[in-house]
């Protein structure tokens, strides 16, 4: 456990450093460190603090939020294929953001778009949470998430279908593909409190995830308060995912891939999985974002596109290899 954590933490730090080093302006390590310590030239500090560091940190935060949410939802729903998207949280957050773009509200202020995304995520969370209180069936819960997801996607398609001009359409597409380009520390500081609150809720309820590996009925017999556990995971994952979507748009599959890769090193315990999944999720997105920037394409690849290109085949592979239950 400790070794896994240490390895992933060091890996994430190195990836962040690498990400800050790379860019159109070449920055040797001494100038980079000087800029990080506010001892460099004004230009260097601008590049590091205004452009590269926020971008690298955004990728790390989004990956961590999605990785931890995925691990927690997989534990709750007892399904290695669950991810933040399955509850419809990502899709509803994306829908709300598209909505403010479509009607031009997004120009009213820089916080309108993120606020809308978080509001959408929380609304979806609330709907699923109410369903969780009513039903005892996990399958029902998943199906409600799938329905919510499809409904959001349908409304989104409708908005794009009726988009008044190519510019707003391009805006929406751009944002839906998912990217951490052009993020500022202001954007990060708005998303961070939601992510931290979500992560804390998930961490506080993690022991119940272990109990759930025996099934709902046995877990209740062990002394788990099933409703409270479900609410905690749904609200925690909803907050973290909503904040992630507000920061980077829709980025899929990190929440599936990260937990899957670390699970064998943690004896498959859903509780011990949370923090390593967050670290690996952050690492994956930082690396993917580096890849996006160094690949020589005419128009820049979007981070969400790369994440899906890598993640979808892994998803199919995991699905085809399930043995238990």
């Amino acid at each position, binding site marked *: 456990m400790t070794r896994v954590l240490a390895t992933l933490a060091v890996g994430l730090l190195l990836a962040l450093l690498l990400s800050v080093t790379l860019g159109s302006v070449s920055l040797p390590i001494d100038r980079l460190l000087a800029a990080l310590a506010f001892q460099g030239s004004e230009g260097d500090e601008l590049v590091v603090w205004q452009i590269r560091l926020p971008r690298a940190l955004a990728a790390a935060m989004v990956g961590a939020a999605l990785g931890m949410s995925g691990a927690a939802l997989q534990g709750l729903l007892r399904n290695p294929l669950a991810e933040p998207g399955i509850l419809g949280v990502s899709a509803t957050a994306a829908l709300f953001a598209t909505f403010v773009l479509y009607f031009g509200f997004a120009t009213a202020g820089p916080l309108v778009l993120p606020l809308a995304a978080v509001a959408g995520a929380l609304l979806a969370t609330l709907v699923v949470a109410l369903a969780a209180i009513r039903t005892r069936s996990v399958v029902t819960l998943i199906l409600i998430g799938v329905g919510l997801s499809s409904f959001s996607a349908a409304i989104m398609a409708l908005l794009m279908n009726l988009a008044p001009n190519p510019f707003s359409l391009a805006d929406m597409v751009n944002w839906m593909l998912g990217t951490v380009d052009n993020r500022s520390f202001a954007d990060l500081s708005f998303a961070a409190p939601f992510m931290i609150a979500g992560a804390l809720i998930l961490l506080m309820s993690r022991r119940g995830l272990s109990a759930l590996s025996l099934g709902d009925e046995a877990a209740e017999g062990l002394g788990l*308060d099933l409703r409270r556990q479900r609410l905690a995971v749904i609200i925690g994952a909803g907050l973290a995912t909503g904040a992630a979507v507000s920061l980077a748009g829709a980025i899929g599959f990190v929440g599936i891939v990260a937990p899957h890769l670390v699970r064998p090193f943690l*004896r498959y315990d859903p509780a011990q999985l949370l923090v390593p999944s967050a670290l690996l999720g952050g690492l994956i997105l930082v690396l993917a974002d580096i890849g996006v920037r160094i690949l020589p394409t005419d128009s820049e690849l979007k981070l969400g596109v790369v994440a899906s290109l890598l993640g979808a085949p892994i998803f199919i592979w995991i699905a085809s290899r399930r043995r238990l239950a």
Partner: protein
Amino acid sequence: MMLLEARDLNHAIEGKALVSDAGFTIGSGTLTALIGPNGSGKTSLLRLALGIVPGDTGEVRIGGMPSGELSPIERARRVAYLPQTRPLVWPQPVEDIVALGRFAYGAALGRLSPEDKAAVTRAIAACQLEGFENRAADTLSGGELARVHLARALAAETALVVADEPVAALDPRHQHQTMRLFADMARDGRGVLTVIHDLDLAVRYADRLLWMHDGRIVADGPPEATCTPDRLRSVFGIAAHVRREGRALRLDIQGPA
């Protein structure tokens, strides 16, 4: 001492009564077998009695306390429950699955206290799973897995163990070993309530039989007093001879009545 007292339990789903007017008590020092044909309401009765499913009416006291006043953790420290369906999703090692039995004592996997570890070791030994500690769940046979789940329930070391068909998947040797283990636990002053379909095992080891039929408890008493050919016919629809050999009963089931 009364470990579990259930009175006037009723539960119906969409007009179909699963459990009707059921009441029973489980005292310390007894092994009680809950028997009845498929669909007679045995599992529903256990769930109601443990408060896992809220009943329509009824009153349950666990260790003398009304079950509504017990938190899930407090209840779990008094009763260990082994459900009939035991779905596992992750290929966890056996000792981790058993260690989950210590949940109500605050145990977290990877950070077990010495008491938790000792209880896990005792439960693994009681279910004869030594050597299996690090085997992954998906490499075990159905019977081995059933013993792992039983060990998980026993690891809580509660005064009362409620088990739903614990021996159904076991080979004859382990069936007898498990029932003997339950009988030993009862002799040590604990209580065991188990659902079982093997009537031979039930009459051989249980101190008491709870007979269920159509959601009702139709008889409640020691095997010698309640296990009669007439009752076997009316409850299970089987024709059987019942012989007495010394203090023990022997069943000879001839077939459907």
